[in-house]
């Protein structure tokens, strides 16, 4: 008896083969890998200690410009610290803050989303009200408030960003749970005698995990940008630690005189977030079996 339908060619491929077909997605994925490696191998890659002062080589431009030397490839700042080394070491902070925040918000948001989607009623209304309140409150003010209460520092900024951004996951998960709730196979599980817990575990979670995971790169990009903005303004990461946002903020006064202090950290930030977004967009399509066919040959 015939009848086994052949799948369209895109769907059957594992992700790594699928990505080869999209040059932009591939490039962004590779770039992200490179950034992560850079962060991990910072002590090996960076020519100098990022906090080391070289008072005789203050404000040197990048190597290819007049007055630049090959010692400090991307120039130095107002205290003689090597720009390149600082950029390399900053990747550690920028990435770890983003990863920590995403991890925390993922867990909190998913739990809230599952709870409100499954339990409904008062619980749902209560948490949705909280979510709306958090989202409506001006982000910056909220972060400033948290920093004011907890004092500056890495932990503080992670907590502050988490408090602000868990709502995305909550809403997404809640939406998915609500639509899954009405699908025939979840109803079938109920008719077959399964409990709500069974339905959640066997049917909802597996169908949520994949789209949720695909959301992560996008959220990483957004969080990184948020941290950069806050650090730029002085509320985020505090010296002696460096992040890209902090570097850009610290170089505010040197826009005209030493533009390399803003351009190169800015580019690092920009390219990383761009790669996260491009890769995230691709992953969202690739992770959804129904839309995989849309990815071009």
């Amino acid at each position, binding site marked *: 008896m*015939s009848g086994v339908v052949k799948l*369209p060619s895109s769907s059957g491929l594992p992700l790594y083969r699928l990505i080869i077909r999209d040059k932009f997605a591939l490039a962004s994925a590779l770039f992200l890998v490179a950034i992560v490696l850079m962060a991990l191998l910072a002590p090996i890659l960076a020519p100098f200690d990022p906090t080391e002062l070289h008072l005789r080589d203050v404000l040197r431009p990048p190597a290819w410009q007049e007055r630049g030397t090959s010692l400090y490839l991307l120039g130095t700042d107002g205290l003689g610290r090597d720009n390149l080394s600082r950029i390399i070491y900053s990747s550690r902070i920028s990435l770890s803050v983003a990863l920590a925040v995403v991890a925390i918000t993922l867990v909190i948001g998913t739990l809230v989303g599952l709870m409100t989607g499954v339990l409904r009623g008062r619980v749902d209304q209560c948490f949705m009200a909280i979510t709306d309140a958090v989202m409506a409150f001006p982000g910056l003010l909220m972060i400033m408030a948290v920093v004011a209460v907890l004092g500056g520092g890495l932990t503080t900024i992670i907590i502050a960003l988490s408090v602000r951004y868990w709502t995305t996951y909550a809403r997404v998960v809640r939406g998915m749970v609500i639509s899954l709730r009405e699908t025939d196979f979840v109803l079938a599980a109920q008719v077959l005698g399964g409990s709500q817990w069974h339905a959640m575990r066997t049917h909802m979670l597996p169908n949520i995990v994949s789209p949720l995971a695909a959301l992560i790169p996008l959220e990483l990009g957004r969080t990184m940008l948020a941290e950069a903005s806050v650090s730029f303004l002085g509320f985020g990461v505090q010296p002696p630690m460096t992040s890209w946002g902090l570097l850009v903020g610290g170089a505010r006064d040197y826009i005209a005189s030493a533009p390399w202090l803003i351009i190169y950290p800015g580019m690092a930030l920009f390219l990383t977030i761009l790669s996260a977004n491009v890769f995230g967009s691709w992953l969202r399509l690739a992770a959804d079996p129904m839309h995989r066919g849309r990815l071009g040959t």
Partner: protein
Amino acid sequence: MSASQQDSTEPPVVETDQPLLSVRGLVTEFVTPAGIIHAVNDVSFDVYSGETVGVVGESGSGKSVAVRSVLGLLSQPPGRIVAGEAVFEGHDLLRLDNYALSVIRGSDIAVIFQDPGTSLNPVLTIGSQISEALRIHQDISRTAARRRSVELLQMVGIPNAKARLDEYPHQYSGGMRQRAMIAMAMANRPKLLIADEPTTALDVTTQAQVLDVLKLAKKESEAATILITHDLGLIAEMADRVVVMYAGRVLETGSVFDIFHRPRHPYTIGLLASLPRIDTELDSLHSIRGAPPTTLPTGCAFHPRCDLGKGRARCAEEVPHLNDVGVGHRSACHFHEEIKDEVRAGDINLEHR
């Protein structure tokens, strides 16, 4: 074929000289990232004035795509008309540009779609939409158009036509919307009316109302009709001639009596035998093994599911031509001569090899 083949209850087969629409060798495909879909593969049929041609087929049969290709309603890309001609009143529709086609569509050729919910503009009143249809193709005043719109609504049996003219589509029920669509289609007295699954989304009693209106419209305007559907009951009820499509090919054509009483293709026979009847009880339903294909098989499109062609290499290798099996009755089967018995629908003798 001898005259005894038809019984006295059947009207005589009359063929006028020139068909109103003549489709020859139509081939349409869709280019998708997943590959090329061969939706229509060498389809030919004729429609004569005044008659109703039923195009029947299941999913993947290409029936809708074929007709949409002819009317220029295919989105190209991803669709692509690769070959063929469709001659309507001396013009090949496939060679006309969009402007020329738009002149013909709505006046000489009118279309009714399946879902009146999406083919009617929800923010315009029914009256304004009918008037628009009239005034695009005819040079008449607004008042005259309005008057004609009322007449049309009355013709399709909408009560209080004058008042209802100024209502919006959502204020009409599904059946009424479909009837309003028929009114719009008939507004410019088309020569050819195309109805694509016109009653599939409707309840049975509503369907009866709409079919009644279609019959009336047919009688008043003497338009030829192409009725596209998967419902064989509709075909038996409305069609004069039938084109049976499967996997983008035409498997059998003939008068409605030929198809239902003397089918000469294993697919048609199997299909008729697999359907229950409302007017009588059958002992069992014949089941055709397998399912309509998603990729076009080599040779005869039906051969993977055919009992007659089981084990015969010719069916898998060679695409059968439409062979004459009666007056105006053709079957695309290599072994059609082995299908001897005259059968009546519901009483099919399926003894083949």
